[in-house]
């Protein structure tokens, strides 16, 4: 996974001059820019944030956030080694390591 992949859900239109920050998502490095929310970084690189925990594990169980204002709570992602964060209201920081796989966000 790399920054702004063709498979990314989001498309960056402006504000491209900010410093780069590397985070890890499911073990893979993802390059983001300082000031990106975790959601922005993840959705520029891919099209999912998490797996719906009450689905059957099918293809339709991916979730990628919804409200972007901390209201719907559909963008909680797991932090490696425990804990979770709300992707739309959290910002990327150097060394952040996340997982988007199945299982309840803790």
């Amino acid at each position: 996974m790399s920054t702004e992949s063709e498979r990314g859900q989001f498309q960056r239109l402006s504000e491209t001059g900010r410093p780069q920050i590397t985070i890890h998502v499911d073990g893979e490095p993802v390059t983001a820019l300082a000031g990106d929310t975790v959601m922005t970084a993840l959705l520029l690189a891919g099209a999912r944030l998490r797996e719906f925990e009450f689905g059957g594990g099918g293809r339709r169980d991916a979730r990628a956030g919804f409200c972007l204002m901390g209201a719907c709570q559909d963008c909680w992602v797991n932090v490696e080694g425990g804990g979770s964060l709300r992707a739309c209201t959290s910002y990327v920081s150097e060394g952040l390591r996340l997982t988007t796989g199945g299982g309840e966000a803790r």
Partner: protein
Amino acid sequence: MSDEQKILIVGAGPAGTRAAELLSGRGLRPIVVDEAPASGGQIYRRQPPGFLRAARLRYCFEAAKAEALHACFDGLTERIDYRPDTSVWSIEDNVAFTLGPGGVERIPFEALILCTGAVDRVIPIPGWTLPGVFTMGGAQIALKAQGCAVGRRVAFLGSGPLLYLVAYQYARAGASVAAVLDTARLGDALPVLPGLFAGGSLLAKGLWYQNWLRLKGVRLRRGVLPVAIAGEERVSGLRYRSGNGRERRIECDAVAFGWGVKSECQLAELAGCEMRFDGAARQWLPVSDDDGRAGVAGVYLAGDGAGVMGADAAEYRGELAALALLSERGAAVDDRRRRYLKARLGRLTRFRIAIDRALPYPDGLAAAQPDDTIVCRCEGVTAGDIRHGQSLEPAEINRAKAYTRLGMGRCQGRMCGLAAAEILAHHNGVGLAEIGRLRGQAPVKPLHIGIAGQAARDDPDRAASI
């Protein structure tokens, strides 16, 4: 100021900013708690440090207002106790419980001004949980605060003041707009034109956005009914019925949708405010008088959280609530100013009523969704689960919650509650008011269990309520 005299303002949007301005100007030092890292609320949300776009690009015609409000708040920070990045997750017996960078805190208060704002009003339709579907407000935030579009080819669906504005902002910023699908018909606007003129330039701006989009060749359709958002792993298209009943499909990789906004009033409910069903707003709202007094001693309501009237009204209402609070404390207040603010609000109320009729909520659309449509996106509860849940006699939404887990997830029914009530009401042939509302419950935002434990240790008497 001792604990007992503390004034707490929740929210630093237009209403909270103006309330804080007035109170701090009178030598009081309110605590201002806000979820965001910077003031402005959602409507005037700021971009993070390091972003360079001018206000004009982000707020369009409202740039001057946004900048004035930001400057106002920035000038207050020495005179208020400002706590950004902090959520209020419960209120009980004149104590607010917050979660911020320093963990959990309890804030006893004597007076409380709730400026909790609004969130998008959405109608669950098949496919709305797919990656690539976002609220209208969310799509705007991606652009305004992150410089991103939510897709490469975005369809805009719904009705309300944001529909054409956000589509315009996207097209202007270089995104591809697949279509703007308005569930309102042109005919809806004609009978209420005089009321629309009460909004002055607001009407002109809306028409200007539409015209700009039309000239750019963007597909604009009115009187549509959404059928489903298509896609397997992510959005691939949007199916809808046009005004003449024919089914159409447009190709897109993202959908932004919503039907205006609805008040966020869980905290008002927890603070003890009486809740009343508002037929025009189609939701239960906390009761307050013209000045924002909630009827609970020391509690005031302002801004869209007390009934949606928009950002300009929120500024007036924030100031009015602060004036009411001051006069309750025996301070002298400027009656002329109060009358002026109320006159401005009266005008905006007429406009609001006209807007609701010109851009009507599509009555019956939620209730018409097929049984397998997910309604509660947190828990995966479907329209069929709600209709055919057991022991729903009498039909009441908290019973439906108990039997189906509807509204029991992380968002506490914030996203699905209103639509679920419509489905339940229609299915049982009763009015929306009779269905009731999902009761506000603490924590109104998710709280890690360890943190709840910390709060309980700090305050064992209240542990039972967490």
